[in-house]
């Protein structure tokens, strides 16, 4: 589903009628990271003797990485506006702890506790946003302080571990949608239905966008490229659907959560005034001020939003672990930041897409899982991920330099 927005936006930004080569060279950046992800998947599929794409592994890949995907969405927005958030890992631990305590010590129903946890994240975001937007302290400093502050508070309230969380809560990250429609052969019917809807949505939205462009007499990409794109994207969704339908659970619940967020935030960034203002602030702050953008409010809202998403990530993370741990969320900020940068977000702000960050997060996730299946020492896993981040950003910068000259 995320692919459909990626593709649509790729098409929008391209629209250069003409030869395929011309088209591809214009869209190298857009497809470069997708190609890199594909290469990594195929490489590990080969290295792990096909274990990487075992149906249950694919489901686990999504469940294990849901927190990064959620955090990376907020982080792209923060970085595009020219800020950074170093506190998300600590906030995940603190909010996760608070959520668990609400359930175990205060007997708050888990569903309500989840809502309160997300709101608590929003309040923390507002706290940081206040210092950044209204007092004017650089986000690096504010969130560095937040990183220490909320890690400390997490240890204060959690101690070491809060366990004994209800089945329903733990199910958020560990369970799949119920098999309510039965099976088609060995495949889960509900998963197939969802996959079918996703592919149909992709095809319809692509054709509608193209038709609108043609109607307005605007340039469109070559029809062959357009078709290839739809077939490839549809094929990938179809294959993932097939694998998930074959897995023991079907569609993981967090996949639905993440997919909805990706669609929502891609739309928010590309098509709303708020999204435009974020790009405007990151691209040229002074020009944004002189264009009447309320930069303080926008900056504040970016951090509130990051907080809300961090709250959700905390819920997902605590649910996955089945317990709140004071040391949870260690280095999550770095995972989210790395995902955004691998996904093409500009270090200087002003450029970046949610879809890109999702690809970045999946590159990191596939690396993690592939290397784990291969039993590579965690120390080496970290080393490899560090190099991948460096190479990805280097590729981006060299690419841009080429485009300039």
């Amino acid at each position, binding site marked *: 589903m995320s692919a459909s927005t990626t593709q649509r936006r790729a098409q929008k930004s391209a*629209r250069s009628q003409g030869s395929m080569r011309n088209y591809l060279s214009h869209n190298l950046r857009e497809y470069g990271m997708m190609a890199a992800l594909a290469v990594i998947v195929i490489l590990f599929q080969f290295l792990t003797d096909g274990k990487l794409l075992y149906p249950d592994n694919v489901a686990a890949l999504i469940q294990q990485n849901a927190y990064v995907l959620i955090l990376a969405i907020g982080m792209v927005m923060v970085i595009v506006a020219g800020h950074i958030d170093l506190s998300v890992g600590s906030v995940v631990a603190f909010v996760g702890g608070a959520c668990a305590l609400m359930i175990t010590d205060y007997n708050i129903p888990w569903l309500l506790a989840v809502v309160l946890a997300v709101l608590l994240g929003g309040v923390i975001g507002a706290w940081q946003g206040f210092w950044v937007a209204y007092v004017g302290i650089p986000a690096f400093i504010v969130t560095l302080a937040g990183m220490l502050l909320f890690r400390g508070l997490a240890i204060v309230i959690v101690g070491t571990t809060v366990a004994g969380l209800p089945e329903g809560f733990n199910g958020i990250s560990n369970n799949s949608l119920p098999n309510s429609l039965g099976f088609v052969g060995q495949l889960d019917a509900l998963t197939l239905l969802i996959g079918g809807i996703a592919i149909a949505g992709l095809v319809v939205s692509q054709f509608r966008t193209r038709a609108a462009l043609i109607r307005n007499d605007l340039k469109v990409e070559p029809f062959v490229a357009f078709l290839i794109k739809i077939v490839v994207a549809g094929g990938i969704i179809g294959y993932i659907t097939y694998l998930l339908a074959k897995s023991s659970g079907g569609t993981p619940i967090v996949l639905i959560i993440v997919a909805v967020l990706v669609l929502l935030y891609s739309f928010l960034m590309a098509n709303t005034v708020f999204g435009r203002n974020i790009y405007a602030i990151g691209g*040229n702050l002074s020009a944004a001020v002189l264009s*009447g*953008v309320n930069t303080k409010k926008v900056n504040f809202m970016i951090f509130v939003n990051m907080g809300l998403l961090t709250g959700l990530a905390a819920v997902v993370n605590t649910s996955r672990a089945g317990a709140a741990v004071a040391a949870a969320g260690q280095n999550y900020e770095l995972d989210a930041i790395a995902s955004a940068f691998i996904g093409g977000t500009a270090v200087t702000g002003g450029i970046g897409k949610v879809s890109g960050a999702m690809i970045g997060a999946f590159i990191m996730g596939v690396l993690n899982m592939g290397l784990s299946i291969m039993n590579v020492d965690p120390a080496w896993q970290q080393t490899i991920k560090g190099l991948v981040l460096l190479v990805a950003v280097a590729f981006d910068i060299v690419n841009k330099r080429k485009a300039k000259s």
Partner: protein
Amino acid sequence: MSPETTPILEMRGITKTFPGVKALQDVTISVRRGEVHAICGENGAGKSTLMKVLSGVYPHGSYEGDIVFEGRACSFKNIRDSEERGIVIIHQELALSPYLSIAENIFLGNERVRRGVIDWTETNKQASLLLARVGLAENPDTKIMDIGVGKQQLVEIAKAISKRVKLLILDEPTAALNDDDSAHLLDLIRHLRSQGITCIIISHKLNEIAAIADTTTIIRDGMSVETLDMHGIEPVSEDRIIRGMVGRDLAHRFPEHTPVIGDEVLRIERWTVHHPIDRTRVVVDNAHMTVNSGEIVGIAGLMGAGRTELAMSMFGRSYGTNISGRILLRGKEIRIRSVRDAIENGIAYATEDRKRYGLNLIEDIKRNISSAKLDRISRFGVVDGAQEITRADGYRRDMNIKSESVDVPSGKLSGGNQQKVVLSKWLFAEPEVLILDEPTRGIDVGAKYEIYEIINTLADAGKAVVVISSELPELLGICDRIYAMSQGRITGEIPRAEATQEGLMRYMTMEKSGASR
């Protein structure tokens, strides 16, 4: 010392191609030792590219043709190579470090050392000598950020002299300078010439070229079209240079326009603004001003007269503190607390520095155009992308913005086309009052004419237009009425028919009478 006849520099048959573009084609230029050699051409004609070839920014092998300096063929691989031979280029954007002192900047990369340790006494002593040579009375300890652009320019020249420069290349040296500083700089160039330093000067200011150059080479569309001897029998006029640059006769530099002036749109009364940091300093002092619909009103003033400050303080208090006075729109007083308020009330301000304050250069044309009034094409906070493209494309065609589509990043456009994007952006905001600050700065002659035409069209559509400009001929050419400012006060109001450059200049230099401070 009169220029000798032997060339110090010859560039022959220089051709430089970028993917898809021939930036320079068979350019030939010969510079005599000890002369001031001007290079003229429209923006994008290839002047800067030629200088980058000469200084080694584009290394030997990346272009075709020969460079002969002091009789020896050159094959520079980088700027260091060319500097070693005594060729120093001073770019439009000064390359000084703001937090370092003048002395440190002069010897940056070329430090005065004794046994590997910086010799501060020697550094400051030599810096003082160099500053004296360029006529800059500043302590070498002063930080660069504490001196104005004009003085920074002199520091750059001092730095060049410290490198034993033989050929000094100045790229638009006076673009950011006021008249006093420009005059001083030109004197300095004459002085350097008398000491045997050869200068190449690239400038858009043709009056300066006419005043200082010994020879002028004109470049058009990447080719050297002609070389003019400025001391020949026939004096070379500005119009003569323009004709060479644009390849056509520009009998009229300004389009004909008959104004249709209507009712008063904007009136400001007793407008006073204080400096944002030094709150006791009055930057705009009790200003009164009116602008009518269909009228183009100019504001003349020297650098620091308070023109931009007046405009920006009106535009949602984006400049200044402790602002007092009234703004009336069509006779009704309006309260403007933010830029948003100003835009909502129909006031638009196009900045003098479009790259820093006017455009998001990494964003495409259409999104820049829509940025000041997104709500016009959005519902419930959702932007109608199709409408945005159609509208922007309309402006692209109307304004003749030269680009493949509205998806091109605005940073890739030339200065003139960027300015058209800025104008489109503010037109899209549907203002009643349009304040244009230096609308043709850094724009070539042909594009200037187009901008003037656009301004006239706006006035004819009933807008009240205010034009702030440092170029007096421009104000005289397009404005119906001109206010002159000096030291924060409006010192004169002159209708077009009575305005002359000399008259304006008198008002612009009018001193404050002691009491009014």
